[in-house]
């Protein structure tokens, strides 16, 4: 069963619909007791970093449980940003799966928020991109991002006057800045790849 985490900061309907349409069994979870039922976990997100971070932190050390059971985790947009240490958007501590801060995109030369379809360029291979052609467009809608693109946990980047991480990964965790549940065929393929993934991945494979 694919767990969809309800951290009270977003739109769960779209992610749930896409998992269901792909033939998997989605279930909403919001506490650790439910983790024993799930094989995968998705962290969705629309909304503020602080609210989501506070909620996740309030239910105990979920990272410990997820690592013990080696549950594959997919963070989407805000869900991906929660995998960082913290964010310029608001106070609150992320899960620190990647030890980096989320920064505001610069609007010196370009309009922000970054809204619309943009190219995702792979830097490393990852199982969630299986069967998806290179340099395709996915749907982004955000003002903050991981801008340190040289780190070994950056799987793919995108550019909006500046380069930023579009996909990050570390062990059983993978995060996407774009919304695969809104990126039609390629996005649905990515979600399907995730639901079939066993959580194994090493940097620079």
């Amino acid at each position, binding site marked *: 069963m694919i767990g969809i985490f309800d951290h009270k900061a*977003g*739109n*769960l*309907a*779209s992610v749930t*619909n*896409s998992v269901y*349409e792909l033939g998997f069994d989605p279930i909403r979870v919001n506490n650790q007791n439910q983790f024993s039922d799930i094989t995968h976990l998705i962290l969705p997100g*629309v*909304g*503020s970093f602080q*609210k989501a971070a506070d909620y996740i932190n309030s239910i105990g050390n979920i990272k410990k449980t997820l690592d013990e059971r080696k549950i594959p985790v997919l963070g989407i947009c805000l869900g991906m940003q929660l995998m960082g240490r913290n964010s310029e*958007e608001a106070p609150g501590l992320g899960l620190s799966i990647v030890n980096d801060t989320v920064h505001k995109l610069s*609007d010196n030369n370009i*309009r*922000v*928020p*970054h*809204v*619309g*379809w*943009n*190219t995702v360029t792979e830097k490393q291979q990852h199982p969630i991109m299986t069967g998806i052609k290179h*340099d*395709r*467009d996915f*749907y982004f*809608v*955000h*003002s903050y991002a991981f801008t340190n693109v040289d780190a070994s946990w950056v799987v793919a980047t995108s*550019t*909006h006057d500046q380069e930023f991480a579009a996909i990050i990964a570390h062990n059983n965790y993978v995060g996407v800045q774009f*919304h695969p*549940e*809104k*990126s*039609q*065929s*390629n*996005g*649905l393929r990515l979600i399907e790849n995730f639901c079939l993934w066993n959580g194994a991945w090493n940097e620079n494979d």
Partner: protein
Amino acid sequence: MLKKRIIPILLLKDGRLVKGINFSNYRDVGNPISSAAVYNSQQVDELIVLNIDSDSFKPLASILKELSSVCFMPLTLGGGVKSFDDAALLIAEGADKVVVNSLCYEAPDEVRKISNHFGKQALVCAIDVRYQEGQYFVFSKCGACKEFESFEQALKRRVSLGAGEILVQSIDHDGTMKGYDLNMVNYASSIVEKLPILASGGCGDYNDIKTLFLSTSADAAVCGSLFNFSDSNPIRAKSFLSNYDIPLKKV
């Protein structure tokens, strides 16, 4: 690089899709769910659905679940949003972005609250204008209520309330299929330099979209009549535009 978007706009009245001219004389053009499903199969960039039933938010709320179950592209929903709670409901049930217009005048604090809670990127502020006596006048409540501030002030109001994108609609060009009001779009882009601008009103053929993207910096072409009243669809629009170096979504 970021691509330009072509976005069909669907107007909802009494549970049916409608289309009008100059914000009046609305005709029934079909079932919202089947239309959305067709657009989804055509891999459209995004879909805007606006409820134009005056004073009632219920028609949009009631079709939400079904609408978001057939759409795997971004959904921008609004029309008649009267509070933060209305916006929260839309987002919880599948909207990626919420559109507000009259709320910017009726309860600006609610608009700020939506932006602060969900982030700017979840808020689109629409602005409807008519060109009269040599200048643009701003109207709220689906063109019924003339607001007493200039186009510039109205744009700045929306920016200050936390808009992530601005949807500029020309009431004069709406439904006429004679092309976008390019002056309106250029003016709005010059006043609002930092946010994406979505242009709406007047699109009649693929050339209008091409002209919009080549002579303004609009980020998106919003199309109402185009896909309802002519033998056209987003796929063919993209094929046409691909001849002109306009960056479009690559699937």
